[in-house]
């Protein structure tokens, strides 16, 4: 284990951390989901860590304010090692319905999560393909309809699809979570063109979830205009998850700033600084 500062930040990057704290959020740029304002646009996850003890320092280092946890891993029995104990109260829980194969199962898991004290947020994850772990949009939509009516803040994990995005909005979803590439693959934004269209048209926030393996890919999603990204595997399976969390937080911030600054577009051809029509005066 690498040495940590009192704050749980790796000593190797504590200098960066101090500098970072001076960085102000000049535009008061927050993402609102449910009733909650998120100043960090990096969402994280609890799965795949070598030790649950890494979760708290990772959250501190990354500044992430929302973390997803599979209800199937929540053990609230008296003697159980409850994963929720590793998540500071200031961080919003995003329980997910991992293990659900139908809308009905997702709905049941969501209700259990609420009863177990996991709050009002729910990430709907309905997967019927264990080989590629791709979401079932149809069942996801059905579950969204039911859970939104029951007052959940619903964040559906989805296959990037413009039509389904509209349907999810109509069903009451608080955001959509299109996948960048299959879960855990670290392949980045393979669905980029589709996600771009969703960002251009969606009336609700777009959180790119799954497949983001590197900070540069997270930055790319944010530059494109994604409202947030969710990163789990890349952070959890890094040799130093705390430092990786930090790296992703910088990337997400940089990508967001780039988006807000409306960078000039890249062009395929060189553009002349003395344009051909420059002589026109009237």
């Amino acid at each position: 284990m690498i040495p940590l500062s009192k704050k749980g930040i790796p000593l190797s990057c504590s200098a960066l951390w101090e500098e970072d704290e001076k960085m102000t959020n000049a535009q008061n740029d927050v993402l609102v989901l449910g009733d909650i304002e998120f100043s960090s646009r990096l969402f994280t996850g609890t799965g795949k860590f070598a030790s649950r003890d890494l979760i708290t320092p990772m959250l501190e280092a990354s500044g992430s304010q929302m973390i997803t946890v599979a209800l199937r891993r929540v053990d609230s029995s008296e003697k159980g090692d409850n994963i929720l104990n590793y998540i500071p109260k200031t961080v919003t829980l995003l329980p997910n319905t991992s293990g659900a194969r139908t809308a009905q199962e997702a709905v049941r898991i969501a209700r259990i999560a609420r009863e177990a004290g996991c709050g009002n947020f729910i990430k709907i994850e309905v997967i019927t393909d264990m080989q590629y772990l791709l979401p079932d949009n149809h069942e996801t939509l059905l579950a969204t309809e039911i859970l939104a009516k029951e007052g959940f803040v619903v964040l559906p994990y989805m296959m990037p699809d413009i039509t389904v995005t509209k349907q999810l909005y109509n069903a009451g979803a608080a955001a959509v979570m299109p996948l960048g590439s299959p879960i855990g693959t670290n392949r980045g934004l393979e669905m980029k063109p589709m996600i771009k269209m969703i960002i251009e048209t969606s009336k609700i926030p777009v959180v790119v979830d799954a497949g983001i393996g590197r900070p540069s890919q997270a930055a790319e999603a944010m530059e494109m205009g994604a409202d947030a990204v969710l990163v789990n595997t890349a952070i959890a399976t890094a040799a130093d998850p705390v430092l990786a969390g930090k790296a992703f937080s910088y990337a997400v911030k940089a990508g967001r700033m780039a988006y807000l600054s409306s960078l000039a577009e890249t062009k395929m051809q060189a553009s002349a600084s003395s344009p051909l029509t420059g002589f026109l005066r009237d």
Partner: protein
Amino acid sequence: MDVVKQFESFDFNSYFKSVSAADVLHSLNRDLLSPYDLLNLLSEPALQFLEQMAQKSQKITRQYFGRTIGMYAPLYISDYCSNHCTYCGFNCASDAKRLKLTIDQIKAEAQVISDMGIRHILVLTGEAPEKTPMSYLIEAVEVLKTCFSSIGIEMFPMDEEDYRQLKDAGVDSLTVYQETYDQQIYKQVHLKGKKMDYQYRLLTPERGARAGFRSVNIGPLFGLGEPGSEAFMAGLHAKYLEQTFPDVEISLSLPRMTKAAGGIAPRHTLSDRRFVQFILAWRLFMPRLGITVSTRESARFRDKLLHLGVTRYSAGSKTDVGGYALKDAEATAQFEVTDTRTVDEVTQMIRENGFQPVFKDWEIF
């Protein structure tokens, strides 16, 4: 199932002999492996590439499962059995005293196991439906639901409808071992009882998948057939199940025969090297495959396997009926446990190796 059946008459011996080092390397470097790639990785020449296979297997396993390992424990509730399997301590020709737990005794056993921290339970019986009828099994499941978050069964092959009843009662996972994919040997070691029907057993995992179990675990019993071809057939069977039932989690086990009272000695022994080779070859063939290793294996060996691609360990296991709570049960063990450490000792080892033991990974809903 045709994919599996087409290899039943395959000449494994000649194929394995024809594999070259170059064939192995070619298969090792592919992303999507064919059945022939699996054969190449299971061949003797592949042993010289074990380290490369291990590196790749570790990478893939980390990607899909992270640095975690699922934990479970077995619970034997009855050892009555009408089958005569020559390798098993529960066989009907053995005059060992038989035991079937009452529902209260099951409750007592469950309490002890749950106090050890275990949340996933695997319930086992012999094959004697007249002693352990559906009503008894369902009652057992109802009791176990109060202590555990996942209930698996390793009982006797059933019809789809029976499995559906158990699924509705709360069982989410099915384990059934083919024992051997060599039909000749299968016939020689199964002398009596319903288990003599090779085909019915072979189709059991898919009846379970159709009945709605979310997880299905299969495997050969190493010690009966020729290890390389058994590992291949099991891998192929697993792949077939994964492709046919994409919403079911498929896993493989590789039990090696250990000494059982009243059982025969292994016909083929499987060395540690080849045991590891099989885990690695399976992982490369099926990146998302669950791989279970029980306490049949030694503590020292299991500590090392952790890094190679396994995903699930049992711990603190008792393999006799009433072994956890019934002090004077005097029951026969189905097999001899080699890793006799407590759950706490095993989880400490897992943590020291940089892995997270996961006790609860399901919710009965």
